[in-house]
Structures are given as C-alpha cells and as structure tokens.
C-alpha cells in the first residue's frame, strides 16, 4: 500500500511538470508578442522593460518557464490586465464560490446517481431501468449551459420562484447557508450536477449488473441470505468503480463550471475564466488555469489513492 502510494505520488510529479508547462505555454501560443499579451495596452515603455526583465522574456523558453514557475510557487501569478489587481487574489476570491457550487452539485450528483444506478441495476430490463436509461442518456447528451438557460426560463421567468443570477444578497458579507443564498444555489447546482449524475448512474448500473452476474452473489442468494445482505455485498463491490467515476466527474465539473457560472453570473473561477477570455486578460486566464489544473491533478491523485485503499487489486497492478 505504502509502496503504491509513493509510486503514485512520484508519478504525479512529471504530470504536474507537464501540466504547468502547458499552462505556461498558453501565453506563448497567443498571437503576437507575449509581452503585449501580459501587459495592458497603455503600458509604458518602462513597464514593458520591467516585465521583460522580471519574466526573463529575453531568455530561452525553459529558463522563462522556470522563472514563471518560481513566481507561481511563491503565489505570484502576475497582474490582471482587466482589474489591475494581482491575479492570485482574484483567483483566491473566486475559488471559494466554485468550491461551494462543486460540493453542492457533487453531493446531488452522487446521491441521485448512486440511487438511480443501483435501482436500474437491481431491476434490470424492467420499466424502471428503461426510465433511468432515458434519464442518463439525456443527462450525458444535454448541453449543460442550455439546461441552465431552460431552468432560468422555467423557474425564474415563468414561475418566478428562484433567482436567475448571482450568488445571493450582499456579496461582500461572504456566503452563508441561509435561504437567500441557498435559493441562488439551487439552479446552478442542478445544471452542474446533470452530467456527473448521469455518468455515475450509468457506471453504477453497469457494475451492479456485473456484480449480480458473479458467482458469489448467486451463492449468497442460494445460501438464503436476505436481499438486504446481498445488496450490501453488491454496493461494496461496486464502490471502487463508483468512487473513481465520482472523482473524475468532480474534476469535469470544474471544467463545466466555465459555462454554468457564466449563465448564472456565479462569481467563481469559471466565471473568472470566461471574463478573462472576454477581455483577453491572459495573465488572469493563465493564473486561473494553473490553479484549476493543479487542483485537478491533486484530485486525481486522491481518487487513485482512495481507490487503491478500497480495492486491493489495484495495489498489485
């Protein structure tokens, strides 16, 4: 176990280097001189010179990368062109809101996905299975940003039950789990949870069917074990797969958040990214990407470790 953990940890290092290098390259694949991408249009000649020196833009690419990574490690992600504030503080202000949305959508997706998947798997090829499969195939095919707009049309425009935009009243006071804030959270949660829920339900159904077909379940049933006990065995055997999928979907929710947060004007990292793109604010784009992708790498690492802990077969692989 420890051996696997260390190996997996060491494996994350080259991946992390590759990921940061791609994020670093974003500024360089942008058309034009990277310096013009990094500084506002009205930058003075001195500012240009200073930035050139600071980022070592006259140095070879690898040296520039090392310099940039060094800055990033110390929490210096550059200055946002749009707001003029440090990128790090912009991102820090947004991360919390994204985490709130991710946790809420993650919970909904897991609970609903788990239930739907197990129900469909246990009653395979019955009407309930067909209904679930209709839900899941719609779930993975629906553009979540369109779902978000539909939700706004139904619940905000038509019924006027829930607010269509923002995170809640008094954005300066911070987020609290009270009704005004929760009501703002409901629609973004549903829109974000749709795809992961469908994927989790699908995977879980498949693994439940798989487990039910295995000899040991037949044996358990033949031994007269109560259905509830069988169910427990089924869940325990399907759990590692479910965990892995949930972890990956949590990461994909971070990606999907760009669009959902844009629709709902939810002030998270995705919204930040979208506004960075809209204003061609490359330092902000780069900084947000760095934080999000490092978070994703870390998440993958945790998922793998947790999965190896719940499923001993992986450790030996």
């Amino acid at each position, binding site marked *: 176990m420890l*051996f696997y953990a260390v*190996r997996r940890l*060491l*494996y994350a290092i*080259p991946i992390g280097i590759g990921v940061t290098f791609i994020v670093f390259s974003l500024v360089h694949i942008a058309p034009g001189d990277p310096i013009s991408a990094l500084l506002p249009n009205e930058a003075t000649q001195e500012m240009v010179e200073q930035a050139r020196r600071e980022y070592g833009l006259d140095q070879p690419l690898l040296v520039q990368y090392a310099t940039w990574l060094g800055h990033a490690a110390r929490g210096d992600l550059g200055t946002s062109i749009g707001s003029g504030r440090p990128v790090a503080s912009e991102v820090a202000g947004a991360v919390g809101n994204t985490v709130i949305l991710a946790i809420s959508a993650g919970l909904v997706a897991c609970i609903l996905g788990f239930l739907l998947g197990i129900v469909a798997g246990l009653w395979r090829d019955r009407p309930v299975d067909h209904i679930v499969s209709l839900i899941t195939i719609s779930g993975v095919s629906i553009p979540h940003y369109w779902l978000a707009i539909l939700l706004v049309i139904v619940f905000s425009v038509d019924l006027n039950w829930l607010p269509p935009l923002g995170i809640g009243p008094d954005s300066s006071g911070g987020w609290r789990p009270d009704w005004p804030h929760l009501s703002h959270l409901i629609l973004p949660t549903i829109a974000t949870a749709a795809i992961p829920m469908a994927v989790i339900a699908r995977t879980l159904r498949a693994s439940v069917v798989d487990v039910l077909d295995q000899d040991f379940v037949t044996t358990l049933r033949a031994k007269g074990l109560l259905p509830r006990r069988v169910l427990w065995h089924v869940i325990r055997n399907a759990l590692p797969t479910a965990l892995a999928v949930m972890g990956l979907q949590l990461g994909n929710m971070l990606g999907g958040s760009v669009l959902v947060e844009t629709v709902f004007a939810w002030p998270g990292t995705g919204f930040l990214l979208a506004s960075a793109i809209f204003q061609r604010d490359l330092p902000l784009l780069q900084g947000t990407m760095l934080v999000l992708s490092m978070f994703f790498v870390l998440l993958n690492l945790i998922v793998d470790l947790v999965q190896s802990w719940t499923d001993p077969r992986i450790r030996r*692989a």
Partner: protein
Amino acid sequence: MSANLARLEAPLPVIPDRGGPLQPLLAASDLSKTFRLSGGFFGGRKAVHAVDGLSLTVGKGETVGIVGESGCGKSTAARLISGITPADAGEIVFDGETYWTPRSRITAERRRAIQMVFQDSASSLNPRMTLAETLAFGPRAHGIPTASAHAYARDLLAAVGLPPARFAERYPIQLSGGQRQRVNIARAVAMRPRLLILDEPVSALDKSVEAQVLNLLVQLREELGLSYIFISHDLNVVRYISDRVAVMYLGQVVEEATSEDIFATPKHPYTRALFASRPSLDPRHRVKAAPLAGDPPDPIDPPSGCRFRTRCPIAESLCATVAPPLDDTAKDGAAVHKVACWAAVPGSGHSLAAKPLERVQ
C-alpha cells in the same frame, strides 16, 4: 484428397541445404530472457527469468520435443528460438550460419526458414481475412504476385485436407478447431521453412481430431524433410512424435535424451515425477499420491543452486549451494543422455551419486 506438398508448384524457392546431413539444422546456445514486471516510471526491479541459459540443437529431419509444467518457459523458449522475441543473451546458429545474435537483425528472406504453429485459439487466425487471404499473405510479402499467391493458397488448403472450393473464401469463425489448426499448419508450411516450431499444436483439440492433425504433421515432415521442435505438456503425444526430448523446469533444461531413453530410464527426479503423474490406463499402475506437490516456485525469485530442490525428494545441502551442470551421463557408446542433477554426477558429494573411488577399485 491430400496432394503431395513436395510436388506442389511452390512460388517460394526451397531453401538449399548448406552444411550437409551431419551439420545440425539449429544450434541455440545460452539463450536467456528476463521479463521486467510492472513498468512505469519507478516500476519495481522485479524481473521474471523466463528462460535462463537454454541450449538446444535440432538435427536435420529430427523432431525435438520440449515438455514441462505450464509456466516453465516452454513457450518463451519457442519464441526466442524463432527470433520473434529477441533474447537478452545467447546465439542461434542455423545450418552452420549465424541466424541471430543480440545485436543482429534477421532479414526477411532468412526469417522464413523458421516458422511457428500456435495452439488453436480464436486469435490464431486473423478474423478479418478469408483463409485464402491468410495463406497468401506470407508469399505476397516475399514478392509473389497476388494471383499466384492465391492459387498457391488454394493448393495448400487442398494439401492439408480442406477442399479449396468450399474453404478458400471462408472466415476463421466458420471453422472447427481441427480445421483451424490445419490452416495454421498450412500458413507455416506456405513459407517453405526448414524448421517448424509447434507450440502446443494439438492441446486444444478433441482426441479424435488430435490424431488427424498429428498424422498430418508426420506426413508433412516426411514429404518436405522438415525438422520440428514440438512443445507440449502431453507426454504421450511428445513420445509419439519426437526423436529426442528435452525436459524444462523453471526456464532451464534439466534432462535431455532420445525419446526411447528418457521414457525408459528417466534420470532427473523432476522428469520421474512428471512421468509418474501421467494417468495410466492400467489400474494396477494408478498414481496414488501426487508425485509433485505444490506449485513451482516463484520465477521472480528462483531457489538458489538447483531450482528443483524445493520440491525434490532427494535434495541435499549440496543442491542448495551449487547449480548442477547439464552434462552427458551416458555410458560409452550409448546415445547422449544429459541430466542436470548432482545425484547423477559421480563423485559430486551427493549421497546417491556413484563414488568415483569405487569405480577405480
């Protein structure tokens, strides 16, 4: 029904003999292969010594059987000798000429001299090719025009007992196991090789079909003057077809002798155990206890000295320290009978070994 293959008009030329009848067709020496386990950046240093210092010669027209438990390295040995899996060390000499060394490449023209027949399975034939296409592939690769390669393929089908009118356009899925194995053999023979390596060629077949395929192999050997390396775990089949037999244990040859000798007087304790485990039809000779208890040791970490000592009934302290060499133990004038066991080496110090002093007296 079956045409004589030797008289068949083959588009590929016969590989001429160079060294004469006494020159061994194949002489493989000291072949070793280690498989690294669990790749990845920091994959462990675990390694399986699949084949360790294997030497084997095959005479012209001779059939050498290789027997052993599953996992003893028989199949790896086959792939090393064919050159399809490069060994880590060793050398293969074919008809007096170097065929393979760790630094050499086998040219396409020379490669066809050694062909393989695999155990029948769903993946032994390309499921997307008709039988004619499968058989024509090799000759086409050697520059034979498609039309004549296909005509040759049909002749080959006829030669292995599959009427081309009915079989040429079939896909492998439409064949029985025995029919598939005939095609496997035809595919190998199509290259006009001099040596066929047969890796468990009849193990997956029913007994009745097995006999037909064995007959076909015997017939082809005579008609085409082929040499065989015949790998099997079925001792009766090996005894039937082989002139000489090598017994493998954990990647090494432990005994090698003529078929007659080895079945009459097996000398290595492993060979004896292996032969004893053969089910007998005679109820008076039924095996009562399993002669070989337990699984073979882990090839990742083989035992020191003699590899068989952990399961050997006559192991002594000497066996744990030094590995016995594979040496000839035959009396003067008799055929070579090599054994790697201290008990067979006079004066080795093993309590069952002949004392050299007594001999002198």
